[in-house]
């Protein structure tokens, strides 16, 4: 005679350990994830195509004393935080024939990349179409 035991009622599993594990995973992914879209500045390079403008290039120098257009001071470095910091530069460009002219941007040796990035950002926001990085 085979007597199978009667089916035991299933005990309810406790939710607390599962919630513990899920929270551990959640915290792991929160720490491992990079939040927010990373911001980038496009860097123009010579594509071999001719410039769409026949204006001559202008020399923009980034020195510790400020931003110079063809050797004339236009803005101070510490003012690059202000939205209208490069307005004098663009006004000078407009008197020279327009801001569509290619800009040769030459940083001096004692300026940080941060200042260069801030100037590139201001220039692209102001509508400078062609900025070429030139080594000193």
């Amino acid at each position, binding site marked *: 005679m085979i007597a199978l035991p009667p089916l035991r009622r299933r005990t309810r599993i406790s939710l607390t350990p599962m919630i513990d594990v899920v929270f551990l995973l959640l915290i792991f992914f929160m720490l491992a994830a990079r939040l927010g879209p990373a*911001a980038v*500045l496009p860097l123009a390079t010579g594509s*071999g195509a001719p410039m769409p403008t026949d204006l001559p290039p202008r020399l923009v120098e980034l020195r510790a004393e400020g931003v110079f257009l063809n050797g004339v001071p236009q803005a101070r470095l510490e003012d690059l935080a202000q939205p209208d910091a490069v307005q004098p530069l663009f006004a000078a460009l407009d008197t020279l024939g327009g801001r569509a002219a290619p800009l040769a941007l030459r940083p001096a040796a004692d300026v*940080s*990349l941060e200042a*260069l990035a*801030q100037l590139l950002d201001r220039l692209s926001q102001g509508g400078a179409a062609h900025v070429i990085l030139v080594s000193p």
Partner: protein
Amino acid sequence: MITLPRRSAQKSVRPEPIIPMINVVFLLLIFFLISAAITPPPPVEIRLPQLHTSEGNARQEMGSADVYFTRAADTLFEGQANAAALSALLERLQKAEGTPVITLHADAALEAAEFVALFQALRDAVQGARAEPLRFELSVRRE
């Protein structure tokens, strides 16, 4: 005589069992854990340049190669440094499909002139790797 256990008469009124659902949820969780690609951390501590504007380009993840310029003016790519990094990047670009984007992560304290020199060396090294022009972008932080 064989005694089989008696089936419960009220089976139809029991609530849905929760354990199979938990099993499936854990299977899905493990599947996504394994298939997810976690962004590798930067090889060195890099402080990105801080900009004062809030609007601008967002990064496109498709087909981008991450190159790091350290404060000591070293070029890093996939665990290689300087000349080895450039040749590893060149190899990667020759295999890439579509228009590859090279994202430069440069330290904010790097001198701008050194950055331009490193950028030009990088450009010269990878120029001609592909028929179409490459796209470069500089990783920054915005307010």
